[in-house]
């Protein structure tokens, strides 16, 4: 589990992270979204104890980041922004070095390294120098390093960046599998569809502050105060002057469609369908228009910009 309480970090006079409150339970994935420089990496570094909070507290896997940093580091698997690979080492040597650093026994080291190299399709390249790896292979090796010691908490910064679609799918599936194994995972990403697919919770961070937080569905609903519906007709409207019922607000109208929104779809929708049918407009389909995560994200970030923060 990860919990933070007013977690803040200042570099001289600049607050990179300010008053962050998070709670991610075991078996949950939190996606941290935000523009470059928003404070995502600083948050991850605070949770891995390689930065010290200026203010506030945090607990990772039940350990206090201020008072039990070594235990926190033993419980966390980290995929850093840069891969952090040593180019003159082979994949085998690289993983063995970190497995020793995480104090795995000789038997565990061999087993885990074999398992992970096989899982990420790197078994054949295990004796090759890392400097000769492609970007995707490096990313996979860095991920393997993060998973070596079977940590209960995973902090992954851009886990699928530079990966081909098949490899990205492999990583996403791995994350979902880890989630089902009761691991706590934080993923920093710019890939909104990925966040939507794997995250139980999304936190949008900007200027070091969390500006929006909740499940993907909650965020969409939070943004959309009124439900939107698109009605498609069997024939063209031909300049027909539409009259909607009370409570329905026309947003847009096309050749054979219209878009409206309402705060009470349960009562408004049946009367509107009835009214449109009475006006001689044959309804072909009616579907709810849910806003995308991208719209939520942009709305949140732009709202921040408008507020001048």
């Amino acid at each position, binding site marked *: 589990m990860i919990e933070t309480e007013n977690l803040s970090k200042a570099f001289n006079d600049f607050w990179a992270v300010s008053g962050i409150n998070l709670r991610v339970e075991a078996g949950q994935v939190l996606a941290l979204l935000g523009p470059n420089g928003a404070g995502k990496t600083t948050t991850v570094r605070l949770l891995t104890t390689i930065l*010290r909070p200026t203010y506030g507290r945090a607990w990772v896997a039940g350990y206090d980041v201020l008072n039990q940093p070594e235990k926190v580091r033993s419980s966390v698997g980290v995929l850093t922004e840069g891969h952090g690979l040593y180019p003159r080492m082979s994949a085998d040597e690289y993983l063995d070095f970190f497995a020793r650093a995480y104090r795995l026994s000789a038997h565990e080291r061999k087993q885990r390294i074999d398992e992970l190299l096989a899982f990420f399709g790197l078994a054949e390249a295990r004796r090759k120098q890392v400097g000769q790896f492609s970007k995707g292979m490096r990313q996979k090796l860095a991920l393997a390093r993060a998973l070596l010691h079977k940590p209960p908490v995973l902090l992954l910064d851009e886990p699928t960046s530079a990966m081909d679609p098949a490899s990205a799918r492999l990583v996403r599936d791995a994350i979902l599998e880890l989630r089902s194994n009761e691991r706590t995972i934080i993923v920093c990403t710019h890939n909104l569809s990925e966040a939507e697919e794997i995250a139980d919770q999304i936190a949008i961070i900007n200027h070091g502050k969390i500006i929006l937080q909740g499940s993907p569905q909650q965020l969409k609903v939070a943004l959309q105060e009124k439900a939107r519906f698109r009605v498609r007709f069997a024939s063209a409207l031909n300049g027909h002057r539409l009259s909607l019922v009370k409570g329905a607000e026309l947003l847009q109208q096309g050749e054979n469609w219209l878009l409206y929104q309402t705060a009470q779809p349960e009562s408004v929708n049946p009367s509107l369908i009835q009214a449109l049918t009475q006006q001689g407009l044959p309804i072909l389909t009616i579907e709810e228009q849910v806003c995308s995560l991208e719209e939520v994200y942009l709305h949140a970030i732009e709202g921040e910009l408008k507020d001048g923060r």
Partner: protein
Amino acid sequence: MAVERLQNFFAGALLVTVREVREQFRDWRIIFPIVVLTLFFPVLMNYTANRLVNFVQQYDAPIIGERLIPFLLMVVGFFPMSISLVIALESFVGEKERLTIEPLLCTPLSDTQLYFGKLLASLTPPLLASYLGTFVYLIGVTYKVGWRAEPLFIVQIFVLATMQALVMVSGSVVISSQTTSVRAANLLASFIIIPMALLLQAISALMFWGRYSALWWVALGLLIIAGLLIRSGLAQFRREELLEREMDTLNLHWIGRTFWRFFKGEARSLRGWWRSEVLRSGRKALLPSGLTVLVLLLGGYVGASQAKVFVLPSEYIQEYWNSGEVISRLGQLQLLPSYSVGLVWFQNLRAIFLASLGGFFSFGVFGMLVLLLPFALIGYFMASLVQVGISPWVFLGAFILPHAILEVPAILIAGGAILRMGASFATPARGQTVGEAWLRALADWARVMIGLVMPLLLGAALVEMLITPRLAFWLMSR
């Protein structure tokens, strides 16, 4: 339990060391100079030694050759260590620039394990190269020139090389862990290169002079400095700060503001400042002042012991002392230079500031050396007087004691403040950045200097110019 902890500690540190050394040996940019300096360079030195020995023998000056061969041995051992500087300087900051440090910092390895691991990794290859080069040179010089080194001298050269490497590496690792770029680290390396170059010249002088036993003292001094540098590096190394520093910016406004905050303390008036802040800093300097007493007494003893080595002509002293010249010159106030009080004060202040400057860069060590010099001279003169049968107490009572009543406490307090400032660089400053800790130490030093040492030295200068000569005149003319 303790053994297990120690084993775990070394297992972690050596893990870092082995990885780094292995990677260094895969880098031809490191391998190539090591091979050249361990194999080619000693052979070149053998050739040089051979030619020079033959050359000087033509002019019946074999001593030059005799002194040159051991000197070249020292040079051969030292040269491969220049690589240690390069490796150590980029140990932390290089990894930071290559973005490989973060995963390492995220492991459960402790700060001390990381630090020692890096230190050993920077030390091992160049030191092995140094030993190998020395062996190659020794073999060559034995067979080609026929020179055989004393076993103890070989041990001495190996110890000296190890200590030099230790100082250079420990200093470089401190720089590497505190800078934000390899470029900045390289620039700061001059703080290591220049003192090491001066040290090499001093060692060369000792070797050409034939004072080989003094090299043990040099090795001991280097060991102490290396110990202090390692202590300082460990105290100031915190993984949390390694990624915090992104730019080497010199914020003069912040420096000035922070220094003034520490210097002023909580005082609201000059009187309050002196009574609370100055005296508090003075009290903190009490213990190191006690250490200064021991150092100054040691200086006096060393000076006195040198009176037997560098003997002043007794006839001259007795003639001068008994001829009345001293008294007549005292009468004209010419025994002491005819300075004004201000000049004497300035002279003493200059010495104290020089000691402080030396102490600032050497954890207080060079500061102590500057302060003990006058005491060594006093010891020397007193012992010289004893040797010719003149009571040293008259000299002490007439020429030193009157103004020493104020000057010695000033020196002791200043010595304490210098030692404290030096020590603060080698002690952890939890809850403060390294910059804040340094500014606090500097502010403490400044309080003591301005509030205590400067007034005491002014009083001493007044006594020295107005009372000491008259008292000396009175005592000597009795």
